[in-house]
């Protein structure tokens, strides 16, 4: 079976559906916007304080925004029993996981890229020279959240209390991602030498690799049982 075609078609279907309904991205965006607004008015905005606070606030906004999107990732498949259809099709389960992961990652990154300029404005940050490294941290952190989140989204989709169960299961597991992302972003914003926060970026990359591979293998069991 054409493994990569399945990934491509699943991601295409999710993106097309989202572009038309804007259900996921708009709810994610407005939640994150409210977080930014509340925090930006709660703290003083001198650059020093902003640099200290911003990484934590930003990743809290990104992670909780991501959970909103991840929660809806598989519930969309429940309409018209589409999940049953995916289960019945002669396609590798790992390809379904990677297709869903690709679309979840993309949704989260789109929202984060829309929100990032707002963080810069509201927290009065000077980050333009550091954008390439910032994008690397953003992708590594977001992949960590979405790799585990996609698996747990599939695991909880048939549970009645799935909106509660997803964060309960997901948040403890992604603590290393959140710590790594906050520390790496903080180091970058403070202008520390890269050697000081490189271990945190490495931690993110190692987490991404391990959890994407594990989730890929476990997904067949989750979907078929």
């Amino acid at each position, binding site marked *: *079976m*054409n493994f990569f*075609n*399945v990934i491509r*078609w699943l991601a*295409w*279907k999710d993106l*097309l*559906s989202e572009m*038309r*309904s804007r259900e996921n991205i708009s709810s994610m965006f407005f939640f994150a916007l409210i977080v930014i607004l509340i925090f930006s008015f709660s703290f003083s905005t001198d650059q020093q304080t902003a640099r200290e606070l911003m990484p934590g606030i930003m990743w809290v906004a990104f992670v909780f925004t991501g959970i909103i999107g991840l929660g809806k990732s598989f519930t969309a498949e429940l*309409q*018209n*029993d*589409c999940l*049953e*259809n*995916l*289960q*019945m*099709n*002669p*396609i590798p389960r790992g390809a379904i996981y990677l297709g869903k992961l690709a679309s979840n990652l993309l949704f989260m990154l789109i929202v984060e890229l829309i929100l990032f300029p707002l963080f810069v404005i509201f927290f009065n940050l000077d980050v333009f020279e550091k954008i390439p490294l910032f994008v690397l941290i953003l992708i590594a952190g977001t992949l960590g959240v979405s790799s585990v989140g996609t698996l747990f989204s599939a695991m909880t989709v048939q549970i009645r209390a799935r909106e509660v169960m997803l964060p309960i299961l997901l948040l403890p597991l992604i603590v290393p991602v959140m710590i790594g992302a906050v520390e790496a972003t903080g180091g970058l914003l403070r202008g520390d030498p890269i050697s000081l926060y490189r271990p945190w970026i490495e931690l993110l990359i190692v987490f991404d690799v391990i959890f994407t591979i594990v989730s890929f293998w476990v997904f067949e069991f989750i979907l078929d049982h």
Partner: protein
Amino acid sequence: MSGIRGIQLSQSYRHYQVLKDVSFEVAQGECYALFGPNGAGKTTLLKLLATLQKPSSGRFEMMGHDGIRDRNRVREFLLMIAHGSYLYGELDAVENIRFALALRGLSPDAREIKTALDRVGIGAFADFKIRYFSEGMKKRLSIAKAILIRPKVLLMDEPYSSLDERGMKLMNQFIRESTGQGASVLMTSHNRVQSAEVAGKAGVLFQGTLRDIAVKDLAAAHELF
């Protein structure tokens, strides 16, 4: 070689036994119509055969392959038309067909899709989103999908529900065509008159057990169960 062969299939939910040692055979090019009251286990039987559930005991074969051990192979043969239409609301009819066929490694050209949609009478709605479709139109779209996929085993859960008279004729025409091409069809139904037109064999599932009945008696019998 039989298309579908159930061998002493049983299924229990907690303490309730839905299916009790159900055995049957559907030859290639044959249509088997299954009747029974609501809750008799008809849909459960179809879900077992569609590899969506595992039986508590017993086994089944499809085109000579073991349905439990070899379920990935079995999935290549089968297609299910069920109450859930397996369609995505935000995609239009053509996009839904393209997506469903792509998961099976098929890529029909625009003309083939148009012909199939015209055949089932919804050609004029090809670019309409599915969320605007009635249940009957969704069922017709499922037939169009099946026409293009040409499965060797067709499982149909109440294929006549939601269809108007013309739609029912269309469904029977499609079933005849499929069996003519050698496909095995197993359908559950409450419509004895329509089913009698296409079925070569029939059975009644009642209190978990299956008994065969003559097709000629279908329309005439006062009560089946």
